[in-house]
């Protein structure tokens, strides 16, 4: 099975199983500036996929998440500005941008930006989380945290493919 077929199948399974998404546009409340390395196991209808995530968090600029396959290909790249507006910077072929905005951004805001709303997140401890919705379960671990200033261009939405 080729990569694009994988993404298409992933999307299909995802879209079948998920409830109507709720978009959040609340301002972010981020209290740290750091890059987090994350490892996730995504379960969709009993099938599991491993993902690597790199999340840049800034008190001033917002957050940016890059999700990659284990071998390095970018699956999704999304920027969330401090006012809660989300921009999809990149997405793998076959993975709809609106799904990244609706689900990935929603979970991201719940987990790391202290946004109140319909969160489906269970915090196991400071670094382990479970996101559970009708269609999927995401077991997420923060495996590395690198605090320190981040360049403003990391949070520049020029070049975004959708808002």
């Amino acid at each position, binding site marked *: *099975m*080729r*990569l*694009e077929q*994988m993404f298409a*199948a*992933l999307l299909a399974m995802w879209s079948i199983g998920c409830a109507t998404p709720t978009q959040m546009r609340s301002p972010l409340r981020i209290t740290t500036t750091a*890059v987090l*390395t994350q*490892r996730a*196991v995504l*379960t*969709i209808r*009993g*099938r*599991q*996929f*491993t993902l690597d995530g*790199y999340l*840049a968090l800034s008190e001033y600029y917002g957050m*940016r998440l*890059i999700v*990659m396959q*284990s*071998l*390095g*290909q*970018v699956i999704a790249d999304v920027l969330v500005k401090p006012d809660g507006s989300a921009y999809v910077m990149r997405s*793998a*072929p076959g993975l709809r941008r609106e799904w990244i905005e609706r689900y990935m951004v929603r979970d991201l805001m719940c987990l790391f930006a202290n946004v109140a709303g319909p969160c489906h997140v269970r915090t196991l401890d400071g670094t*382990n989380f479970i996101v559970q919705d009708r269609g999927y379960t995401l*077991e997420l*671990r923060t*495996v*590395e945290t690198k605090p320190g200033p981040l*360049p403003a*261009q*990391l949070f520049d939405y020029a070049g975004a493919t959708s808002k």
Partner: protein
Amino acid sequence: MKTCIAFLLLFPMTIHAQQPLSLDEARPIVEQLQRGMSTLQTVNLEFVQERHLSLFTEPLRSEGVMFIEKPDRIRWETTSPYQSILLGDHKSVAQFEWTNGSWKKLHLGFPQMLKRVMEQMTLLHQGKLDALTSDYTVSVQTGSVAAIVLTPKDANVRSMLESIEMRMDPDFKAVREILMKQPGGDFTSIVIQNEQRNMTFPVGTFDQNKPLNLATVEAALRHAP
């Protein structure tokens, strides 16, 4: 700016490169590679993987080990910053994740795709480049940077993965680094270290239900005759 950074990163590789040879043109080199690899029963090595994303000032680093045993068994284990094991042979693949203090076997979503990737890694390490030509255009680069370059034939795959470049010793006897280049200049580098050949791996190294713990495998290799 991104283009500029990518150019600077790639410049040292391109400056010494000669015109790449097609697989047919490089037939003597490929045969030499296959002859060299044909004597290998096993290979084990350590790797450092760095993802170079133009957005981040520092590469994103992970480490691990790999074991390959003829004809088709492979174990790819990431040891840092998280722990994960991928195991494969001609029949099946398995993946384990270390979570909450124990190994958990995953119910893989797309085992065929993962199996194909593992098969390709095994074929590469055996120098069987002809077997890869259905998916890749293969070319060989000689000169101060000896490399085998695989370019995906499928345009959709190429939109995510521009090429895989295996940098080798000048005599094409061992792989030293693998570069996976993405469109836009980002790339992943896997540097190979401490390669050992023809070691005997303990039973359980490739077990797809209960793989032998890495520390036990490494202890057995240290005490091998």
